[in-house]
């Protein structure tokens, strides 16, 4: 086609320089133009003139607890079978939260975040909503996720949080706000865990204490009401008395029999007989005090034993509850999470993105590759002729 044009041109007596230029332009490889020149030109215009500066604010933190977390190496992970996500790492709590809709809605109170990304001086391709597509919360969330970068190094446990925004102040503010929210999250989790663990144990202790008081009171009331201190010991004393009395009785009886057999008319006999009778009566009384009737010691003993048993159980329960509370407090302390800021969010003074020259060169390089590919393919096709 271009040959014919040239033929016409030369037939009409030598073209002007403009005609020469146009005919040369037609011969330029179309693939080269569309694959390399055009994209590079467009990229240069965009990155050189249109694209707005993007400032990146970076902060680093680590989430730790006093309890050591096991690090598994490559072999350990392969052998563990279902070691897919290192669920022991509590840093993922914070990562997920930062990238979540919750964090976004807190940041976006009064549309604060949206306004930061929808500024009028930002170019149309970088602004939210991109190219005037939907202006919904969901779209904002996807946009937000592309501008937040959470990078986790599992060997050191350090997380790097990078926030991209269109001014330095915005980037710093968003980063700072996210860090504060994460700290609040960790505190909330800690509080809840502590409350749960220590709360139950404290309630147990309070209950046990009340029980102890009640049973002790019951015992002393019983003692007052029935005029007895400790039936067991008291009866032991009584029985001791009884045995003394009995030995005295035996002595008296022996003496009586002796005197009776020696001199029956002795005036001592009646005295001794009285003595024996009194001793017998005393023994009977003493025995009756210990056992036999309801008012005796052994009659009061069951009730007393029951109350004392209750008191014993209550005391032991109280002791157990106290030690459980101690260990619960210890557990809670060991499971506390701490979010330590290693590097505070910075206020960048220069915009390090977008990487303008690099992007243009990348477009150029890719264009060259595609040009090479297409040229080879097309020449391969052209080798087939009827």
């Amino acid at each position, binding site marked *: 086609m271009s040959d014919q044009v040239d033929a016409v041109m030369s037939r009409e007596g030598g073209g002007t320089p403009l005609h020469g230029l146009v005919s040369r332009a037609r011969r330029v490889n179309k693939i080269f133009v569309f694959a390399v020149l055009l994209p590079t030109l467009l990229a240069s215009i965009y990155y050189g003139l249109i694209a707005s500066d993007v400032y990146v604010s970076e902060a680093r933190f680590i989430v730790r607890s006093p309890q050591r977390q096991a690090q*598994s*190496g*490559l072999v350990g*992970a*392969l052998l563990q*079978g*279902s*070691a*897919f*996500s290192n669920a022991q790492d509590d840093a993922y709590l914070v990562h997920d939260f930062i990238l979540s809709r919750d964090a976004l809605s807190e940041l976006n109170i009064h549309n604060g975040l949206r306004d930061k990304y929808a500024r009028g001086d930002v170019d149309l391709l970088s602004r939210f909503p991109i190219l005037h597509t939907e202006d919904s919360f969901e779209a904002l969330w996807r946009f937000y996720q592309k501008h937040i970068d959470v990078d*986790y*190094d*599992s*060997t050191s446990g350090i997380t790097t949080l990078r926030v991209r925004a269109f001014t330095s102040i915005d980037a710093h503010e968003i980063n700072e706000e996210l860090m504060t929210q994460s700290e609040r999250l960790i505190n909330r989790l800690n509080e809840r865990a502590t409350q749960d663990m220590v709360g139950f144990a404290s309630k147990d202790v309070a209950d046990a204490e009340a029980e102890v008081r009640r049973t002790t009171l019951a015992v002393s009331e019983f003692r007052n009401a029935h005029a007895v201190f400790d039936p067991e010991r008291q009866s032991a004393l009584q029985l001791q008395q009884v045995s003394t009395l009995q030995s005295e009785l035996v002595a008296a009886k022996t003496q009586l029999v002796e005197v009776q057999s020696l001199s029956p008319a002795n005036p001592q006999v009646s005295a001794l007989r009285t003595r024996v009778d009194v001793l017998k009566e005393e023994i009977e009384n003493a025995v009756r005090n210990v056992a036999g009737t309801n008012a005796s010691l052994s009659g009061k003993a069951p009730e007393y034993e029951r109350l004392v048993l209750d008191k014993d159980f209550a005391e032991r329960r109280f002791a157990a509850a106290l030690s459980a509370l101690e260990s619960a407090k210890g557990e809670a302390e060991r499971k506390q999470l701490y979010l330590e800021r290693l590097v505070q969010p910075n206020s960048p003074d220069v915009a390090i993105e977008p990487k303008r020259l690099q992007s243009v060169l990348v477009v150029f390089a*890719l264009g060259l*590759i*595609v040009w*090479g*590919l297409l040229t*080879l*393919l*097309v*020449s*391969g*096709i*052209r*080798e*087939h*002729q*009827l």
Partner: protein
Amino acid sequence: MSQNAPLWPSFNVQIRVIGALIMREIITRYGRHNIGFLWLFVEPALFTLGITALWNIAIHKHAAGISITAFALTGYSSVLLWRNCSGRCVNAIEPNLSLLYHRNVRVMDVFMARLILEVAGASFSFLTLSLVFHFFDLVPTPASIATVLGGWVLLAWYAISLGLLVGALSALTELIERVWHIVTYLLFPLSGAAYLVEWLPSGAQQFVSWLPMVHATEMIRSGYFGNVFTPHYEISYLLVCCLVQSLIGLFLLGIAAKRVIPE
């Protein structure tokens, strides 16, 4: 060979040549006995079935809500794609040397015929096994078929470019023939079929994401299993790898084609 020859008729000729080469390839490879050319699909399917059965017996735990069967299906079908493509293209020229005598049969056509066959075989086997397993409730319904397709297409492109590269190299030097089997064998455990990238510590993750097949396999699995695991892949990296490898492959193919002397 005119640079200004019209494109469309030449393309038609090339398509017909490749079609004829495919038919010839099928008949010479599979013959008309047995189930004939159905072996094209059945062989990869049997391979995958065998591996699936083996892994089911050997591994007893379900990994993160992913059944062993689904894991083996997605992993091994992906490996088959690039392994078969590259394997068939090694020394592909020699058996077809007599065909190159024809003016319209080019080295590129020979390769493309074999590659199209291999891609078709692996794809059909993947599709059939997916349907069969799904019928028996051994694998879940894919969460996003578009992602699975996208990953498969990119993997197929990668496999084709790898085949061209390896085929061209094998025509240029005899070393490739010996070395390529070793390379595929060593690449198999690394290539993402046997693990999910999120299982690895971050150092190993970085190392392994230099391999494009890993990205493709992750993408296929992400489409299949959805949110059950966190996929680690970058489409842009995979695309760039495919582009660069295709370019190098075609370029070397051009050089190899000039050296070929038809009998």
